[in-house]
């Protein structure tokens, strides 16, 4: 059964997988180079990463047909590390990222994703889109109007070419056309070659040359942790999208472990940390890719192209890559969140905007997500901490009945005692907790306080309608029976 499943995963869709893998490889090249440039490393680092990650994840990933490679989200997190400490520390951080992700997967923490509310995820993708866009501005500095024309041309081809055929990725067509114009027209403009060296070699195994000390660990750990979280967040989001697009299920914990293994291996082969890519995975599925073979072909064919076409790649003008990145940014951004910003609940909109703002201020996607989750938790606590107290008098029994409705916990009980009238002229108060739930000792303490205040006024207090769970908590904390 297992072998059969494996066979189906790999060879269930050979023709579709090979074709789509080739299409993805072509579409990956410009992005891998552009993301390397965002991170501040040579283009080879992103290309090696895309090759290694795609090939490794084809074997160990949990979502067949999903494409993982060097990504913008990850590149943006490494900028400072590369600028301050250099490439070797980035490679070490990549390996540590993989280790963290692997542990995450082994502990089956993929479920923790559900604690990231969708307003935070939307903030995440929007912030990512803005950062990718902003990262392109540097390429315009010191360039003439030709730069703007070429970027415009790149974008025009990217968006209009699919109207004629979708067989070839339009980003690739745009790059070829714009590069040809620059070469034939002898236009003097910055190219990939100016950004760093491109070697036409397969990646080799080596151990990053960093001192193996606690100090190194302290330097790379914050980066690795952020990379691990963001990588898994985007990978699991992408896995959900691919699940939905193909109407199939996937193993999220296996995917987490797979992302870890892929990043560990990539680090040892001179590549930067990466994760799953929403856009590329979409291209793969749309081009007919379903199985693991498609991801494998994407990585392998990419490396083949670099080895064969390296001389051409260095001549790609930055204008063409900037155009591709603008497209990536536009398609990453969730435009409906802007259209609907006044329609969605105000707290949701606030969390989304706050997530974006924190990312833009700190330049750190992980911090934005963390703050967004915190903020959502606070809003949630505020929302469920609304407790209503209504009272009614039963004159025959000289009793006032208070009905408490809501969740009683530390955030909701601070004002609770004030909502009872302790100068009442009754003998007996009945607190009806049928629609209330006691969650913690703050809730018990609040009820105790109410009880003792009534006792001071010589009013007897009884509780009714306590649910079993709340009763257990109350007994455990107070050690006295709650009902007569």
């Amino acid at each position, binding site marked *: 059964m297992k072998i059969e499943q494996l066979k189906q995963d790999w060879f269930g869709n050979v023709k579709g997988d090979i074709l789509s893998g080739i299409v993805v490889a072509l579409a990956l090249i410009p992005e891998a180079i552009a993301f390397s440039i965002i991170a501040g490393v040579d283009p080879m680092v992103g290309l090696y990463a895309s090759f290694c990650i795609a090939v490794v994840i084809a074997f160990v990933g949990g979502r067949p047909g999903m494409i993982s490679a060097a990504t913008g989200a990850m590149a943006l997190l490494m900028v400072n590390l590369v600028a301050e400490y250099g490439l070797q520390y980035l490679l070490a951080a990549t390996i540590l990222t993989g280790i963290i992700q692997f542990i995450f997967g082994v502990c089956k923490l993929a479920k923790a994703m559900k604690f990231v509310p969708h307003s935070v*995820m939307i903030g995440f993708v929007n912030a990512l889109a803005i950062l990718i866009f902003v990262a392109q501005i540097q390429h315009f500095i010191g360039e003439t109007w030709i730069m703007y024309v070429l970027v415009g041309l790149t974008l025009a081809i990217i968006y209009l070419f699919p109207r004629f055929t979708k067989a070839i990725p339009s980003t690739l067509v745009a790059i070829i056309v714009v590069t040809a114009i620059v070469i034939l027209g002898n236009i003097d403009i910055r190219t990939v070659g100016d950004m760093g060296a491109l070697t036409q070699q397969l990646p080799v195994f080596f151990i990053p040359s960093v001192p193996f000390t606690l100090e190194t660990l302290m330097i790379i750990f914050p980066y690795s942790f952020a990379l691990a979280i963001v990588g898994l967040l985007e990978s699991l*989001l992408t896995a959900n*999208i691919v699940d*939905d*697009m193909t109407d199939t299920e996937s193993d999220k914990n296996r995917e987490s472990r797979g992302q870890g293994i892929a990043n560990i291996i990539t680090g040892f082969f001179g590549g930067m940390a990466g994760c799953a890519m*929403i856009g590329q995975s*979409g291209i793969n599925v749309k081009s007919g890719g379903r199985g693991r073979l498609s991801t494998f072909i994407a990585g392998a064919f990419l490396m083949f192209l670099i080895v064969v076409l390296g001389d051409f790649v260095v001549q790609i003008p930055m204008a063409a890559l900037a155009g591709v990145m603008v497209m990536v940014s536009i398609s990453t951004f*969730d435009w409906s969140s802007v259209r609907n910003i006044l329609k969605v609940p105000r707290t949701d909109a606030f969390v989304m905007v706050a997530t974006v703002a924190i990312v833009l201020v700190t330049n750190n996607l992980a911090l934005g997500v963390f703050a967004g989750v915190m903020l959502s938790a606070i809003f949630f606590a505020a929302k469920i901490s609304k407790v209503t107290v209504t009272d009614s008098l039963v004159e025959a029994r000289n009793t006032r009945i208070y009905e408490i409705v809501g969740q009683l916990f530390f955030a909701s009980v601070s004002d609770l005692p004030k909502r009872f009238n302790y100068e009442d002229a009754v003998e007996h108060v009945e607190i009806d907790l049928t629609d209330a739930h006691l969650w913690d000792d703050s809730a018990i303490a609040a009820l105790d306080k109410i009880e003792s205040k009534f006792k001071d006024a010589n009013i007897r207090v009884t509780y009714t309608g306590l649910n079993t769970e709340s009763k257990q908590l109350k007994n455990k904390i107070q050690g006295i029976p709650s009902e007569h």
Partner: protein
Amino acid sequence: MFKRILLAVDGSEHSIRAVKYAIELVKKFDGVIEAVYVVDENTAKKDVLYATNKFEIEAKRKEKIKPIRELLDQSDVVFGTHVLHGEPGPRIVEFAEEREVDCVVIGSRGLNQVQSFLLGSVSHKVAKRAACPVLIVK
């Protein structure tokens, strides 16, 4: 003649008009309707981003085609509804062949030439590629 009709819907006003046509048509021939809603890449991306779990996604999609279901429910014709995944044009054609339908009924968004060049017209694609007659409702 039109025993089994594929009705392509997207929850928009245009598709509601198509539903009404399909109901009339099916009544005349005493046939059945297969209502199809195709989730494309962008919709999948958006729906996943906006939902916390799969049930929520499913519920949202059901909500989207609810007006269409209601119309079909009221009409007492025999029908089935399907949520499919892929690119709308090719997926509709594929499903039409799978189910051997006699006719595809689809609403037209009424795009002008520039719009249909930029956005791509699903109804045109279906009309071009389907093996059976296609009724484009304007």
